[in-house]
């Protein structure tokens, strides 16, 4: 028996997709009135009371963040599907040090990357002849300038902060890549990786239809949101608490522009929070609203996304400890630099 006997019922594709878009738009515009109605009318909380503000913040942020994640991650994932790493590496071979590094950092924004692909990706890049510095520019930029961070920064802080974050991330990736290239650390890559050079299979290309692409993007987004949403809820809950109850003076004293140690402090706090951007951004939003400095905020976000201990451990399979340590140090210094630079630019007398 080789024929397919069981088929699940599926909605016709394009009508379903159109309905989803309309539903998203309606929900988007209903979120703010809903939050106000929920906090002040339904629950009868007083406007501008601590509890009322906290509840309204929560009731507005939860649907807003959920909608942003669902809508924009789907679109971004769809776009990213057109830039698979398999093709990006062909683009990066033989570009020269500088152009290659800049290109790799830029492509890191649009190329999908999950840390479980880090090892095959690294081997594949090096094997194809992509220089080490260029490969690292990609490894820094891809997780740091990631879609979830950008989407949430855009939605919660506005386009200015999101673009500044992107520019800062790209700068760290380019400078880090150039520096690692200059340090000539090739001997710290495991020998077997070099032995593979030029052995890769032929370029593969599988054509996908638009329907497949949209379905893939949606499935990816749905799974992602399902996985991260508990963290987002906790994050928004903490954010709401900060918004309603934590005194501004306290936040300013610790995270404000007046505390020179704020930037390293938040990078330290970010260390165990790797890749949990979704849960932390609502907290950061509340803190920024209470007077945390912008550079400090950016450094915190970058440290969360770019310094990932599990990724370093995974990379041990292909590179030796001195190179991993160099990689981690350069990224950390880059982040500290961005934090101080923005604090200086924004708040210097």
């Amino acid at each position, binding site marked *: *028996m*080789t*024929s*397919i*006997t*069981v*088929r*699940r019922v599926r909605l016709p594709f394009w009508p379903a997709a159109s309905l989803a878009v309309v539903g998203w738009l309606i929900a988007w515009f209903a979120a703010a009135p809903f939050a106000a109605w929920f906090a002040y009318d339904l629950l009868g909380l007083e406007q501008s009371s601590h509890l009322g503000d906290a509840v309204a913040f929560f009731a507005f942020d939860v649907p807003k963040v959920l909608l942003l994640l669902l809508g924009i991650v789907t679109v971004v994932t769809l776009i990213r*599907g057109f830039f*698979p*790493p*398999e093709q990006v*590496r062909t683009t990066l071979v033989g570009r020269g040090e500088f152009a290659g590094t800049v290109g790799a950092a830029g492509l890191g924004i649009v190329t*999908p*990357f*999950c840390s*479980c*692909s880090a*090892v*095959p*990706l690294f*081997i*594949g*890049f090096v*094997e194809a002849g992509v220089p080490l510095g260029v490969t690292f520019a990609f490894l820094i930029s891809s997780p740091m300038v990631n879609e979830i961070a950008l989407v949430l920064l855009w939605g919660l802080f506005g386009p200015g902060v999101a673009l500044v974050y992107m520019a800062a991330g790209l700068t760290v990736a380019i400078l880090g890549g150039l520096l690692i290239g200059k340090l000539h650390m090739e001997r710290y890559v495991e020998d*077997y990786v070099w032995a*593979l050079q030029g*052995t*890769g*299979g*032929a*370029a*593969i290309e*599988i054509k996908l239809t638009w329907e497949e692409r949209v*379905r*893939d993007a949606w*499935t*990816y987004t749905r799974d992602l949101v399902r996985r991260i949403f508990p963290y987002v809820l906790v994050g928004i809950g903490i954010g709401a608490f900060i918004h309603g109850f934590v005194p501004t003076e306290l936040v300013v004293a610790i995270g404000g522009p007046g505390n020179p140690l704020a930037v390293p402090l938040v990078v330290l706090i970010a260390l165990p929070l790797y890749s949990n951007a979704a849960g932390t951004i609502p907290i950061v939003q509340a803190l920024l609203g209470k007077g945390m400095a912008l550079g400090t905020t950016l450094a915190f976000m970058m440290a969360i996304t770019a310094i990932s201990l599990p990724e370093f451990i*995974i990379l041990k*399979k*292909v590179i030796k400890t001195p190179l991993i340590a160099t990689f981690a140090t350069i990224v950390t210094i880059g982040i500290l630099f961005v934090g101080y630079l923005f604090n200086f630019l924004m708040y210097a007398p």
Partner: protein
Amino acid sequence: MHTIEVLGPGCNNCRRVEANAREAMVLSGAQAEVIHVTDPREIVSHGILSTPGLIIDGRIRSYGRIPSPDDIAVWLTEK
């Protein structure tokens, strides 16, 4: 008898491809041996960088995405 190779270091996504492949075998009634390829060198040797990858009878069917059981069932029954 088909050969299904799931390429990936063993994260969630790879396990889902494997589960979908097994569901596809039930859907299509096709018999297949499922192999999990975790060695990054072997993954890269197929030209695949973004896991999970799926190879059926030596032909790369997908990479960097999780194909549905229906998709895989069609590939299993294709001549």
